């Protein structure tokens, strides 16, 4: 077999393999998006409806409207407890504020580690424990502790624990950006007469800003989709979107696929947009200095 033919075959093989996985990835996503546009009778139809003849926006209208649902007969859906807009607000508040803390403190800590070694590399790895030990093992006493402090079911309570559990990622990721900035640039600014604060503000910060933004969005993804802590520490008042979503799942008669899908699409869409936006930096969030550039 000549070289060209071999290469061509390998090429086809590659595209074939990639396309198979592409289908496996895309089909569930297609299905939930499609379901969100299906009218009620298509939800459980057999054979399944792959392409609805009568797409509708009704699911979105119903789910994202904060009033009780009107429906034609069938099961009684108890929707009074679901308040997606409120959950959206909660989710936004909690994830943005906690991300702000994690990234703000993480930036200062990362700068100190990168330039003054205020934490040794060993300590930096130990910091990962905050993330790696599963939260379920402390969440019960934490909820009791929170309840005595009146932090249970509050935004503050979730913000505190989210800030702590995302800090390791934040520090490591921002440190990787600062490490890439040559020390000489800072020294050049200083020998030209810039104070340390000035150097930070005018030289360091602008140069790592895009990295900090990427870190912010990365951590936002983590906090936005967190479920266990939110489920136990918030429940009613400040239920986040994932918790709100899971309420549909609980009851047997609560299988309202179209509605769930409409809610799910709304919850996931911002994350996908953010993730695609920062896709070049995603690897950094997990690489902990193991990928040398």
């Amino acid at each position, binding site marked *: 077999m000549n070289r060209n033919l071999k290469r061509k075959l390998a090429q086809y093989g590659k595209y074939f393999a990639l396309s198979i996985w592409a289908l496996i990835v895309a089909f569930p996503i297609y299905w939930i998006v499609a379901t969100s546009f299906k009218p009620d009778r298509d939800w*459980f139809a057999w054979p*399944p409806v792959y392409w609805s003849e009568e797409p509708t926006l009704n699911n979105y209208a119903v789910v994202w409207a904060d009033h009780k649902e009107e429906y034609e007969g069938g099961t009684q859906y108890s929707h009074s407890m679901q308040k997606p807009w409120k959950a959206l607000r909660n989710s936004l508040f909690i994830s943005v504020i906690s991300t702000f803390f994690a990234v703000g403190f993480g930036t200062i800590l990362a700068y100190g580690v990168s330039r003054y070694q205020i934490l040794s590399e060993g300590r930096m790895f130990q910091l990962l424990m905050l993330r*790696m030990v599963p939260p379920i093992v*402390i969440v019960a006493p934490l909820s*009791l502790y929170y309840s005595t402090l009146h932090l249970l079911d509050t935004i503050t309570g979730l913000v505190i624990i989210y800030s702590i559990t995302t*800090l390791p990622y934040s520090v490591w990721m921002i440190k990787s950006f600062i490490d890439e900035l040559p*020390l000489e640039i800072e020294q050049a600014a200083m020998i030209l007469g810039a104070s340390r604060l000035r150097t930070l503000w005018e030289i360091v910060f602008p140069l790592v800003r895009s990295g900090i933004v990427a870190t912010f969005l990365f951590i936002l993804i983590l906090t936005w989709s967190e479920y266990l802590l939110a489920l136990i520490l918030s429940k009613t008042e400040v239920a986040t979107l994932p918790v709100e979503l899971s309420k549909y799942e609980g009851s047997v008669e609560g299988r309202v696929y179209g509605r769930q899908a409409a809610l799910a699409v709304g919850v996931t869409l911002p994350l996908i947009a953010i*993730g695609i936006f920062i896709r070049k930096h995603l690897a950094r969030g997990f690489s902990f*200095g193991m*990928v040398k550039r």
Partner: protein
Amino acid sequence: MPPFPGSALSLLQNMNSSPTSNTNGSTKSRPRQLVQARAVQRFKWSVLSVLIVVLVAVLFPVLMLQLYFSFHGYSVYGGSWWDAEFVGLELFEEVVTDPRLGWAIIRSLLFATGSTIGCFVIGFGLALLMYRPFRGQAFYYILFILPMLTVPIVIAYTGEMLLYQKGPVNDLLSSIFGRQVNILWLANADTALLTVMVLEVWNWVPFSFIIMMAGLAALPDEPIEAAKILGASKWRVFVEIQLPLLRPVIVLALILRFLEAIAEFPKAWSLFQGGPGSATETIPTYLYIVTWQYFEISKGAAMSYVILLIMVAIVLLAIQILRREKIGLDQIYDSRKETTA
């Protein structure tokens, strides 16, 4: 304690000199060095004290409470928790001899190992196919990272919609194999854990994929080209050059994924709540059931303690391994830098 973060920044003001690679190298300190060293120390401790205070304030009482409950019989039905009766090691005995916990641990290990291998093999395979630029690379890359960006609860949902008995997956399988396929993905105790595993793999292949893509892209080209010219086949290049250079990244991908898989809760819980029977009772779900469904707070606490100790040991080991890999990597990297300088 100084209010944060403004004061930490203002401390930086005193450190007007440049940061240097060593701050404590001198044997005889002079005033300027002393001032700087003090400023660095102040900065260091004002930052670290915030961290330490927060961690102690949050984690210490939690661990104390957990310790208290582990030695006092308390459940929500038993009056005020501070009046609970001291029971000594009774709870720990109960926990250690609880076969359900044993099974939960086995299931968790099985689940984590299986899904870690699944994620890694598929993710690494895709990365190997994709790390060199080609037409459509960006398209496939974006598509392949989508599952990771999806909220786990949504994945559980989607899983249910796809996998229920009269759902599209059984329908598609039927038309592929030309006969009626009727797998009870969601109701069969034998396959329930496998179902969660499939969802976990679908969810987290992107994680391995992204890390391995980055690792492969960061490999130096020249040693690989050199090996090819010296007559190594693709396979030998892979085994002798690429794989050893990738080892730290591979170790990282495996360890992180394994630990996250041990902690997996949203999908297993919202799809199965531990059932059918106790087929999907993993460590997190069983702990959740004991504490929040049986409300056996004390047993949950004692159990948490046991798991916490095991996990801390595992995580410390993992950290040790990661550090060793990092040090090895730094050595390779530094020696390379020296020869080019």
